[in-house]
């Protein structure tokens, strides 16, 4: 139940953020450093993406690293700490109250620290340094730096302590989160689980080295460039673009080499997500090389990378992981003893298809709308994204419902696991 608790909280944050979008159209048409835009951003990066990664970690660490989590109890306490901290941060960003924001950020820092300790102790005497294991470690180094930078930014509102200009430090915080926490975790885990989902050969070769070195070197170089040496911004961005290219090459090779006969909606989501990464990368490079500039383009870049690549990847993985966790808990012990539904029967393909159309189309349209700077253009994809998020939540709810009541099994939904 531990991963499900995290994933449930994450899905709730995603739905809340997407439902808020249509009302935030005027704010999204302005500068991104607006309290409500910051509340929305942290609902997505902390409430949705980070909680999803943490929840998935507790399910996937034993698979990916082939060893148990050091302490489930610590992870349960951490969930409570993070729920209070993240909710507090979003609420205080929304109303623009900085002292309380710093307190909530301290709680988030405590929760992140508990997670890092749990992962580090899970990795004691670890000696299977696979691509995924290296990126998981890199991701946790990135999480630590991201939290420290974020906390410093929060404190800076109370006692000015940052030596440099504010916005470069803010941009450094954003890119630490994106390129040193979210990207390593998504790229690392996808290299392990996409072959399982797609029944494809394990990826290998130079694209992996591009991802690993691109992220490991690119993020600190870019961040150093942002806060201290602007000449390093372009090479850092180029290294990160190489990492993104390596990831896309791997996803394409896995999709082409798959033995799975059909693609379910979860897999369609992760493949569509990979399609957003080149778009976001090109825009990011254009910003880094000063070919484009301004808050609207920066917001469109964030929409493509955080909304398109990261969020759709997570939606896809969640549509695979949540029904599996529910099926495993409810029906796995009954296999061979009574008729049980297939795992596919826990899904709701109509809701998933609706979510796919509205979320992929909505994010693309939102990126264009934020770049265009028209409020009415932003509100329309906002409604599409809100509706898509609700369809996604309905699909998860359809699976989770099996935990509390077991719907009658139709003959077409049964399989020959039991004779």
């Amino acid at each position: 139940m531990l991963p499900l608790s995290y994933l449930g909280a994450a899905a709730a944050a995603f739905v809340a953020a997407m439902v808020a979008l249509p009302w935030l159209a005027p704010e999204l048409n302005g500068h991104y450093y607006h309290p409500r835009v910051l509340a929305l951003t942290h609902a997505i990066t902390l409430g949705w993406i980070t909680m999803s990664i943490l929840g998935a970690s507790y399910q996937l660490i034993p698979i990916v690293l082939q060893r148990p989590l050091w302490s489930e109890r610590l992870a349960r306490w951490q969930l409570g700490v993070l729920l209070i901290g993240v909710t507090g941060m979003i609420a205080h960003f929304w109303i623009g109250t900085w002292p309380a924001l710093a307190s909530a950020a301290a709680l988030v820092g405590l929760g992140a620290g508990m997670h890092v300790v749990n992962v580090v102790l899970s990795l004691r005497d670890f000696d299977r340094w696979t691509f995924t294991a290296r990126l998981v470690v890199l991701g946790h180094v990135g999480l630590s730096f991201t939290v420290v930078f974020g906390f410093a930014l929060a404190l800076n509102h109370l006692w000015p302590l940052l030596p440099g200009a504010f916005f470069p430090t803010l941009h450094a915080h954003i890119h630490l989160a994106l390129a040193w926490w979210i990207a390593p975790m998504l790229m690392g885990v996808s290299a392990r689980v996409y072959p399982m989902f797609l029944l494809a050969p394990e990826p290998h070769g130079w694209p992996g080295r591009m991802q690993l070195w691109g992220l490991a070197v690119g993020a600190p170089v870019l961040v150093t460039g942002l806060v201290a040496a602007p000449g390093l911004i372009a090479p850092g961005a180029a290294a990160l673009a190489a990492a993104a290219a390596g990831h896309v090459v791997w996803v394409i090779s896995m999709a082409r080499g798959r033995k799975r006969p059909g693609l379910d909606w979860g897999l369609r989501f992760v493949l569509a997500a990979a399609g957003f990464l080149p778009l976001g990368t090109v825009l990011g490079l254009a910003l880094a090389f000063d070919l484009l500039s301004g808050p609207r383009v920066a917001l469109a870049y964030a929409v493509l990378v955080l909304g398109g690549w990261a969020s759709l990847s997570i939606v896809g993985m969640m549509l695979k992981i949540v029904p599996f966790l529910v099926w495993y808990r409810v029906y796995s012990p009954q296999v061979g003893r009574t008729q049980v539904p297939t795992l596919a029967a826990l899904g709701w393909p109509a809701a998933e298809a609706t979510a796919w159309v509205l979320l992929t189309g909505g994010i693309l349209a939102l990126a264009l709308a934020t770049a265009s700077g028209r409020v009415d253009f932003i509100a329309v994809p906002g409604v599409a994204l809100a509706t898509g998020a609700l369809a996604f939540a309905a699909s998860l709810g359809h699976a989770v419902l099996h935990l509390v009541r077991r719907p009658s099994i139709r003959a077409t939904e049964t399989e020959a696991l039991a004779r």
Partner: protein
Amino acid sequence: MTVTREQVWTALGEVFDPENGMSIVELGLVYGIDIHDDAVHVTMTFTTAGCPLHASITDWVRQAIKRIPGVETVDVRLTFDPLWTPERIRPIPDRTR
């Protein structure tokens, strides 16, 4: 009552990986079957080491084979040598091995 390889392959063909809906025989997870009187030994693998269904699928294999008349004991041996690859997937299982 003599237990045949055909009976064991048929029983294993009814053990499914719930994630992809394919039987463990179609997936090529079964590396070998040995039958000694009323004892059946199955050598098999998983699509990935650390598979979350490791214990469940092993249990389902035992249950499926124990339902064959004449089977008294079932021994499931796991191996990751050779590692499973998608090339082992075969829609029509070869039941003569």
